[in-house]
């Protein structure tokens, strides 16, 4: 189903062995689908935390991935550090949707209304 590898070798894709759940008959497999090449991208990360709820999700820009720690910048400016070992699942996600007052407003002409390299 997925290309598997171990985290120690910094493979492209690694699966988490711990929090696999049985849902009906289908097995939910968590996959880390980000690499250091995704630094700068907007990502969603599911990670382990202490406390009664074992997992939580964080969305933000992947700023750095050094010494086994990922640094995520949340949209509200908060910087979150996540040890690699707490990583359960992750993937790159598209830019945030345009909401409310921004919708319908003319986009920045320099970004939208000009011919740009593909």
């Amino acid at each position, binding site marked *: 189903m997925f290309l598997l590898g171990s985290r120690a070798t910094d493979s492209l894709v690694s699966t988490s062995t711990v929090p696999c759940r049985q849902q009906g008959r289908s097995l939910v497999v968590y996959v880390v689908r980000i690499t250091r090449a995704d630094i700068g991208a907007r990502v969603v990360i599911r990670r382990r935390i202490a406390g009664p709820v074992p997992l939580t999700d964080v969305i933000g820009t992947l700023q750095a991935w050094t010494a086994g720690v990922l640094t995520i910048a949340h949209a509200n400016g908060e910087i979150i550090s996540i040890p690699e070992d707490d990583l359960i699942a992750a993937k790159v996600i*598209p830019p945030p949707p*345009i909401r409310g007052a921004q919708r319908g407003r003319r986009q920045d*002409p*320099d970004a*939208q*209304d000009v011919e*740009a*390299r*593909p």
Partner: protein
Amino acid sequence: MSARSRAQFADVVRQTPIDLALACQLIASEAEPDAEAADVPGALDRLADEARPVLVAKTTRATAAGATPGGSAEELPAGQDPIDAAEALHESLGLRAGFAGRESDYDDLRASLLPAVLRRRHGLPIMLSVIWLEVASRLGVPAYPVGLPGHMVVALGTPREYVLVDPFTGGRRITVHDAAARVRAAGVPFSRAQLAPMSFEDLLARVLGNIRVLAARSDATATRLWAVELSLLLPHHPASLRRERGELLIRRGDFLNGATDLVTFADAVEVAEPTAAAAARSAAISARARLN
């Protein structure tokens, strides 16, 4: 570049429908002195004359294969298929005449100037689209521009029944899915509304926008200034253009007129964008202080 060509441009963009080729030629005359004398309509006529037999061959083959025969060989049947038109334009403009885009066109002012694009046979997607539109209209093929983010394409047919072609790749057909992928690649969610006909005024605003952005990148203030000034001649334009002209004039040492533009901008956006208005006012004051 002359007061007369500016006045003519202001006049052309207020006609309905706008004469795209003429408007583009007037834009080019700002950059190339001999552009005004270039025979743009003649060049487009010749391209249309070369494309006509190709289109006729396609449509007569189609009618011979199935439906009722049309009129005489030179006349296009009324029930014309946009696919035939797309193929005929691809064959004659793209393959035979060799019109297509190049990577280097994104860094070249000439890729935005219609007479140069007709001469050199390559340019930005938007200029090639203008050629496709002009030739299509000469052939009696309905067509309209579709302004995808960052890339102009052409729809042949009507909004009810059309095919999309990409003049930048020589007029190859693209599917709606290709267009949607392009929209999403630009980070914009796709909807069918993005395939709606673009107005010729918006198209010209985009031509000038391309020139402004390129000139800003290469720090060519003279080019940027005329592109801004032509944009200001369009019936509808964003207030920020006034600020852009003000800043350019100040950089070029015309402090008084630059300051006037900044104040005009500040007055226009006072309510909606108080911060930008205040910044423009203070820039205007410091520009006036440099007058003596």
